[in-house]
């Protein structure tokens, strides 16, 4: 189908718009490009600043999210989960929270955050009672309870 050769209607308007856009493109485009690059840089810098601030923030809290503390901790732990009067076995407990069996290479606070968040949201109506026994870096054994005593 050939293009209708109308002189009126929307086609001339579109042509006018396109011609105008093209004529301004050479002046507008470099500015757009500069702005685009600037926005790119700003996003990148903001992302880096976020990481730096998390590195500093980590000095004041026990968790280590987004702050580059890879494998700086070794936690040996086991979970005892009491649910509706019966105790889950080790595998069931780990699967409930999708936690790795046989050691966790991150601060123990990360395990606590996971268990606590689960019990406050998905498992809110389970009324689970949890005891976690753990050792950090081979030091003395400690316990953490949910709900808190």
């Amino acid at each position, binding site marked *: 189908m050939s293009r209708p050769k109308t002189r009126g209607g929307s086609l001339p308007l579109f042509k006018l718009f396109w011609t105008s856009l093209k004529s301004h493109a050479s002046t507008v485009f470099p500015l757009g490009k500069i702005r685009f690059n600037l926005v*790119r*840089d700003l996003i990148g810098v903001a992302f880096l600043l976020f990481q730096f601030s998390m*590195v500093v923030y980590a000095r004041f809290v026990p968790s280590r*999210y987004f702050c580059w503390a890879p494998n*700086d901790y070794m936690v040996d732990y086991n979970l005892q989960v009491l649910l509706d009067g019966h105790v889950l076995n080790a595998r069931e407990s780990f699967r409930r929270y999708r936690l790795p069996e046989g050691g966790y290479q991150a601060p123990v606070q990360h395990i606590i955050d*996971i268990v606590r968040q689960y019990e406050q949201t998905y498992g809110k109506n389970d009324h689970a009672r949890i005891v976690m026994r753990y050792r950090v870096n081979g030091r003395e054994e400690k316990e953490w309870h949910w709900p808190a005593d």
Partner: protein
Amino acid sequence: MALASGLNLFTKSFLNPLRCAGQDLAPNVLLMAKLVALCLLLKGFWFKLPEPFLPFLSILDHVGSPALFQGALQIAFVASAVSLLFNWRVQVSCLVLGSTILLGILSSRPFYENNTLFCACLLLMAALQRPGGKPWLLRWQVATVYFGAGLNKLADVDWRSGQFFQNWVVGLHHQALYTKIATWLPGLLLSQIMSWATILIELSLFIGFLAPRFYGLAIWGNITFQTALLFSTGKTFGKFYYAMLASSLVFVDWPKNDLTVLYDGDCDFCAKLRRFFKRFDLEGGFRWARLQGTQTDGGASEDSLRGRLRLLNGRSVYVGFEAVKMLLLYNPLTYFLLLLMLMAPQPSFFAYRRWVAVTLLALFSPLFGPLGDALYDRATGNRHCLPRRQRQNPTPAVI
């Protein structure tokens, strides 16, 4: 014949995943992104992308069907990784790939791992890279990782006292040799030394990756440090080892123009080397010229260069074994092969990856230079000259 010419056309085309030149990203940055993407694909990472489960942002618990969310992440991941490998919209691919991984992390706390986050950050920074500009965002990203790691260790009492190291090496990895040496020294002295050495190395690498004059040292420090960790523990820490080594590429001053390689036209061994390297030069980044009749700079006599390759990269000149090494290091194909070698599955009865890593590090390190030169000279020492007919035509043709 048609198949062969088709294959040849493909290897030279921009769609060839082994090619990295001629795109919006600098070849070394694109190569880094591709190596990370390939590593993720080979690890079957898309299977591990989670559905929303205990997300960092509670809004992700309300995005609709968890299975659909997970499926969308997986499709976006595979599509962007494949398009990145095949050089299609490389920066958009990096953006989608990095964002997909980051979204996966944000949607599940148990999924959070430093090595996964590092891969996402590298890809996102590559996406934000200005075309034609220096990859300073990526460089700062790598430096930030070492800053965070070094500072956290420095602030941790178990790292300062050596307690972590002792538990990690002796209790967890059961290193017999380490345990034996540790017993000769009082208390946790050896572990303390190792801990402080790690802290100093990480903080030095942070500084080294910030100062351009130390880039060379920092690159070697980074690769050696990560390989030492792999060697001592046998672990790559997920994708961290591969991603960290790949990230070293962003500190490399990758040549912008073709490199000239001068070779001895009368040397059989050199001719073989030329054929070998030309076959695998998918970017066409090397121009080969006969040494005979070509003006050599620096006053080196033609005789002293006989049988020795000579690679010219701006004002840098590499001769003999060093030239062979640089021919490999300036070819993206080498890095894909190294990645495949290091990621190859290893049998449970012989964990050979650590040995491969150490051997490769030794081969490419400056320390191997003298031995490499001796081996190279031995190989060229047995060269036999080509027939006179060929020697009478010493045209300095660039091939």
